């Protein structure tokens, strides 16, 4: 599977949020790093077909996603940045609802819901209303809904925002485990989230791709005279060096 962005441009008034952006995603985890306003969420919203682009193409295995329409969204699992949920639903009924929206039918609904509840470690609280969930539990529930329908493209926008370190590690491990045979796009400005799990790291700034490579390649590209933030070079240094922030 190949997801290709060709010369994609998105403007908000005079501001160019994404500028002549081209990239090809194949199976694996892509960590997308950049400050607020770098274009991470814009790129994700364009891929999820939630905003209209001003130019360029987005192709899934050579087919334009706008022409694919609903068929494309069947490949898609999306975890939005905001924790928007149906507060009066239980975790199980929320996931059942999303499963049905995704066109899963019959016995498969129950099976898949049970499966993602287990994956997200929400089995014990599946009958609890989402209203009473902690931030971490909500993130896991959102991640679980993104996994329903076994999507081939998983788009995770700031999946660990606002979580404590323990929850962050848990979610990070979880994402790593489910990255097999999938394109996983993970946007964040928390560098440590992707350091250990991303196959490729994209550095974005002002709507442009500054640099891309494996974490090791990017670290190796830092000149020797650069003084590490900590005891040794890490993605934090890559972020500071290439994005200057």
């Amino acid at each position, binding site marked *: 599977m190949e997801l290709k962005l060709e010369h994609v441009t998105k403007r908000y008034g005079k501001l160019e949020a994404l500028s002549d952006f081209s990239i090809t995603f194949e199976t694996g985890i892509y960590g997308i790093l950049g400050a607020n306003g770098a274009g991470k969420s814009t790129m994700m919203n364009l891929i999820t077909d939630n905003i209209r682009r001003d130019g360029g193409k987005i192709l899934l295995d050579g087919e334009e996603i706008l022409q694919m329409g*609903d068929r494309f969204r069947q490949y898609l699992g999306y975890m939005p940045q905001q924790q*928007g949920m149906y507060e*009066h639903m239980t975790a199980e009924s929320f996931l059942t609802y999303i499963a049905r*929206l995704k066109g899963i039918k019959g016995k498969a609904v129950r099976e898949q819901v049970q499966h993602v509840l287990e994956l997200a470690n929400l089995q014990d609280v599946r009958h609890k209303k989402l209203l009473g969930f902690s931030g971490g539990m909500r993130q896991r529930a959102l991640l679980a*809904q993104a996994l329903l329908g076994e999507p081939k493209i998983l788009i995770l926008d700031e999946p660990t925002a606002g979580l404590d370190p323990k929850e962050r590690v848990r979610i990070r491990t979880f994402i790593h485990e489910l990255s097999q045979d999938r394109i996983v796009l993970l946007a964040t400005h928390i560098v440590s989230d992707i350091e250990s799990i991303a196959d490729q790291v994209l550095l974005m700034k002002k709507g442009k791709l500054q640099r891309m490579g494996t974490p090791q390649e990017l670290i190796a590209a830092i000149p020797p005279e650069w003084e590490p933030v900590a005891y040794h070079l890490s993605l934090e240094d890559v972020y500071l060096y290439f994005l200057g922030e």
Partner: protein
Amino acid sequence: MRAVYLKELRSYFTTPLGYVFMAFMLVLFGIYFMLYGLIYQNADYSYVLDAVTMLILFALPLLTMRMFSEEMKNKTDQLLFTSPVKIWKIVMGKYLAALTLFTLALVITMFQPIALSALGGSVPIQKVAGGYIGFFLYGCCFTAIGMLISSATENQLVAAIASIGVFMLIFLLDGIATMLPSTRAFALGVIIIAVLIVAFLIYRAVRDIYVTGIVGVVGIGAAVLLFFFVPSLYDNLLVNVADWCSLVIRYSDFYTGVFDFSNVVFYVSFTVFIVFLTIQVIEKRRWS
């Protein structure tokens, strides 16, 4: 669509909203039933169906105010729009759920004329049945309007207040029209303003100055030509148009025992048009 419909229907009963709406409707019908049926000893239930037409407009926003506003406010619309469900199915699912609740409440009120009849009252069955059909269609239209308003704002309170305002305006439309000047020139002026508004809306939708220009020029040109060559067309035009468009006047045909199929066609077409507009509003918001 089924998933959205069932979820929406369930959500009316997991929050107090559905119960409050049904209670409001039943109390409203109950008060007039008591007044006409029990105190005045009148078995003609169509009086009740006439009396509740305006007050019901305060209850319907309870059903419609949260339909899309809540999704937008809670950002759950992102989950809906990234799922492989078409927008029209989402809109129809929500609309049918609201309509189901409205119909359910309406069906419960049917026990009142049935009880009257069972107790020996001479209930005019055909007239009352026609009244119920009309009331259902009347509710379909206003539920659709409420949903359209809910799709335009993420604030439920604003949606509710705006709905009541718009409902009242529609309810009083024919009365307002009679207060306006009945001169031909005034009617022409109103038509020109209406054409300009339509042209503006077309421009906002298609961003094409030529299409907008053609619509504007042809519309105004036709209005002016008719003004000079068929001036009688402009006699009492606003009142006639308001009467023709009035959802209330058409409803009065039903409960007074006149079953005109054109009224059914009008209500259904009006509802379909408003639901279509809602789909367009959602599509536009989604892209913006």
